[in-house]
């Protein structure tokens, strides 16, 4: 795959309009489930259609067939390292009766693809996959109908095979021979049956990821690898704090350095542009050393985040209110949990390339949402949205709203100053660590009452949190727009309670509990910049409630797995719980001193993938080191399109969550963030990785796709906490489980 092709093609013809491609879907106004205040996906045109077809019903928005038979599939979703490019090909190939490798796939590009909002919330296969599946089936049926007319053979005597329609008499017609101008420019009907699982040749079958060969041989695989002709290198000079104001910079000293083309200064936005990359770096260092800023002390006390959250509540929303107000039982337990601010920490700092030419802006970006990003950029640049095109190119691993959109804005803002020159912005490690929006700090309090038979009869859960999304859609979400002279402001955060949840994601236990009160105490102020991090509130909520389930199990003198099953009627939940326990070899056999077992379960968002996990941990009380030795996990995400990708994502989620749980907290004083690199914000290294992780995929062919990529975050954290409790008899309520905290909790 050659990623530089679209860039070159664009340089030649995008702005003139190549006409090669008819994109006939409207660009509607927008609403994204759960995550955002600013709506992101278009309003449904036909809400009855499956997946993203509801918003973009026209078949040719999804599938194009050339006269030579080449099939191109379009998705508004992007590859984030989760294997999307491969899985979506498998889905299209299945219904089109083709080889997945022969399908061309175009991912998010405002110039070409449907608007599917953000690639977030583990919804790619659920939304885009479903749309492409149905669109492909409908296209296949159209091909058969057309062939029936051309060949004069009844449709039931025709079948699709290998990209052709094959008649019972042996005659065949290729898709390219059938397709005519506007043939696919029709809306989906939603009435075409999908293939049955027993006839699958692509879905659920092992296909090698299409992107890996280039990535292991030095191919241009990432936005960082694009080098268009005439490109200039830009480096940013960010303020020392979010709100610092630029007082003074010796511009001449910087611009007179070798290779420096210019210094861009717009309010507090500062960047150096040079011909060569190292020249830009050298100039950036000089600018950092000489720029003077006015800083304010306005961060909360890192050591008392609960106090900040409790003091800053604007309103309280009821997430769930079920059953009686007041219930008495045999025994009531309560607990409080906290989570610090945590980082995405992509290994490759954010980057983007922007080109301003003929009054139009093109940006190559690793954003999760090309359309919302385009709208935000247009507002910032004071350009009509149709004059801004965002093309997605992969970046380093993305686990939510990181610096991608900001880097796109930085590049675009600079490019507008230097028309005709492709501008490459590459963030430094420090900029990524200090400026990405973090996963929000949280406080939770839970209390529950058990009856005499050891059943939970009452559940009260309160959480304190910011919104977990400040994604673009409007300019105020972009750092460059906030820093520039116009000083766009972030739109005020609003409390929104939705089925998918945000800070309250997974705040409602899936267990059968007759009386439940769940509240979100909403904190609008964001002195520490926050936004979506893999799982949003689900990580802390599941950590809290699954830790507490173990406390309740202990109070009820019941095995934790049995206790969960006692409160669970959903058969699919029961299956993953039982499967994980069995794969792990769950038992109450004694373990050597200092070792413990932990279990946890959740259905992500209470309507996506089911995941249960069991693991064993060793706790060294002398050093405070917690080491996970082995893990068994079961996951049910409906029909498994790409089982290996599901395993890969789940293993990754387990390891990432382990790192969050054991090690990670953004450090800050009252003025500055103090976690500028991997020294100050350590994450798991190889020595901490478990000896084994086994992931069992519970396949449910023919059932709807359930988002899976974020499902492991919460259960892993809770299972570690439960294993720690089992190993030591003590529970840690505050994340992360640093060595100091472990030693303090355990004493000597």
């Amino acid at each position, binding site marked *: 795959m050659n990623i530089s092709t679209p860039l070159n093609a664009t340089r030649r013809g995008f702005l003139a309009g190549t006409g090669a491609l008819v994109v006939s879907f409207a660009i509607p106004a927008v609403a994204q489930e759960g995550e955002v205040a600013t709506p992101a996906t278009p309003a449904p045109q036909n809400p009855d259609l499956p997946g993203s077809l509801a918003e973009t019903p026209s078949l040719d928005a999804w599938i194009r067939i050339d006269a030579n038979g080449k099939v191109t599939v379009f998705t508004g979703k992007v590859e984030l390292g989760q294997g999307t490019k491969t899985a979506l090909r498998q889905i299209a190939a299945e219904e089109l009766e083709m080889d997945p490798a022969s399908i061309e796939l175009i991912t998010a590009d405002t110039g070409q693809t449907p608007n599917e909002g953000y690639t977030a919330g583990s919804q790619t296969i659920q939304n885009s996959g479903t749309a492409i599946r149905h669109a492909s089936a409908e296209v296949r049926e159209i091909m058969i109908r057309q062939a029936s007319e051309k060949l004069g053979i009844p449709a039931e005597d025709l079948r699709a095979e290998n990209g052709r329609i094959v008649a019972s008499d042996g005659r065949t017609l290729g898709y390219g021979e059938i397709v005519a101008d506007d043939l696919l420019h029709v809306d989906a009907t939603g009435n075409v049956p999908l293939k049955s699982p027993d006839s699958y040749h692509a879905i659920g079958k092992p296909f090698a990821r299409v992107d890996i060969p280039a*990535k292991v*041989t030095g191919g241009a695989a990432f936005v960082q*690898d694009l080098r268009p002709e005439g490109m200039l290198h830009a480096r940013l000079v960010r303020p020392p704090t979010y709100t610092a104001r630029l007082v003074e910079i010796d511009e001449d000293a910087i611009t007179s350095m070798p290779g420096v083309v210019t210094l861009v200064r717009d309010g507090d936005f500062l960047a150096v542009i040079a011909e060569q990359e*190292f020249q830009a770096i050298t100039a950036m260092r000089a600018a950092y050393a000489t720029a003077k800023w006015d800083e304010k002390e306005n961060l909360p006390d890192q050591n008392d985040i609960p106090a900040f959250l409790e003091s800053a509540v604007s309103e309280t929303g009821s997430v769930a209110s079920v059953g009686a107000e007041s219930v008495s039982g045999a025994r009531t337990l309560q607990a409080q949990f906290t989570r610090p601010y945590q980082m995405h920490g992509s290994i490759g*700092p954010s980057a983007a390339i922007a080109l301003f030419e003929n009054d139009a802006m093109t940006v190559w970006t690793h954003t999760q949402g090309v359309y919302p990003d385009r709208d935000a950029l247009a507002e910032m640049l004071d350009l009509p949205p149709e004059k801004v095109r965002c093309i997605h190119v992969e970046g380093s691993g993305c686990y939510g709203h990181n610096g991608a959109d900001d880097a796109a804005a930085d590049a675009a803002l600079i490019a507008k100053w230097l028309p005709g020159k492709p501008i490459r912005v590459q963030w430094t490690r420090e900029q990524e660590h200090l400026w990405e929006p973090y996963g929000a700090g949280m406080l939770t309090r839970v209390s529950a009452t058990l009856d005499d038979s050891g059943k939970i009869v009452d559940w009260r859960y309160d959480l304190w949190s910011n919104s977990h999304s400040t994604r673009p859609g409007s300019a105020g979400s972009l750092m460059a727009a906030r820093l520039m002279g116009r000083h766009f402001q972030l739109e005020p955060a609003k409390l929104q309670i939705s089925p998918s949840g945000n800070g309250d994601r997974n705040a409602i236990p899936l267990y059968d509990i007759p009386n439940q009160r769940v509240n979100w105490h909403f904190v609008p102020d964001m002195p520490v910049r926050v936004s979506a991090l893999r799982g949003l509130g689900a990580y802390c909520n599941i950590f809290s409630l699954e830790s507490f389930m173990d406390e309740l199990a202990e109070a009820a003198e019941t095995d934790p797995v049995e206790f969960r099953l006692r409160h669970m009627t959903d058969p699919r939940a029961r299956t993953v719980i039982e499967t994980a326990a069995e794969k792990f070899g769950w038992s109450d056999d004694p373990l050597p001193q200092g070792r413990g077992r932990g279990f946890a379960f959740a259905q992500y968002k209470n309507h996506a993938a089911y995941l249960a996990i069991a693991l064993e941990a060793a706790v060294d009380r002398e050093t405070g080191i917690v080491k996970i030795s082995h893990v068994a996990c079961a996951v049910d995400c409906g029909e498994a399109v790409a089982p290996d990708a599901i395993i890969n994502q789940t293993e990754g989620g387990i390891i990432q969550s382990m790192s969050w749980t054991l090690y990670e907290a953004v450090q800050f004083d009252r003025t500055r963030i103090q976690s500028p*690199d991997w020294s100050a914000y350590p994450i798991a290294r190889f020595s901490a990785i478990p000896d084994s992780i086994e992931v069992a995929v519970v396949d449910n062919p023919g059932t709807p796709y359930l988002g899976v990529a974020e499902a492991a975050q919460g259960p892993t954290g809770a299972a570690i906490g439960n294993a720690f409790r089992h190993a030591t008899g003590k529970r840690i309520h505050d994340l992360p489980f640093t060595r100091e905290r472990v030693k303090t909790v355990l004493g000597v």
Partner: protein
Amino acid sequence: MKLTVNGTAHEVDADPSTPLLYVLRNDLGLNGAKFGCGLGQCGACTVMVDGKAVFSCLTPVMLLEDREIKTVEGLGTIDNPGPMQTAFIEEQAAQCGYCIPGMMMRAQSILEANPDATDDELRHGLEPNLCRCGTHMRILRAVSKARTLMKSASAAPAVERA
């Protein structure tokens, strides 16, 4: 100045204090080594110099005259991948893949120095390299597989290898 990269001598016109990473990527058009931190903390930029793994982001080219530099492009091509690359493809050992070339180069240096490195030695040796996607289990599997493939590759007659 002259730099020998993947067996080929290149004349590069760069400030001698430029870190190797930028010369590889911008002057020689090699994408394998990635910018990760510029501080020697993450290993995304790892390449080999005279068989040993080094952080190219912190290695000024002035120190590299007459040295053999090897990048992931020197391990094979997309059409004819070398043992390390084959192992990573076969084990599907990538999520985003950004850290992977650095992982491969460090593993390659360990195995070139000790073709019989144990799994523990490989795990320990990879410690300087970070992966944020959590692909560690697969990376370890791929590196173990590479150990086997490298041995059979070096045992095979030269003709077959070509």
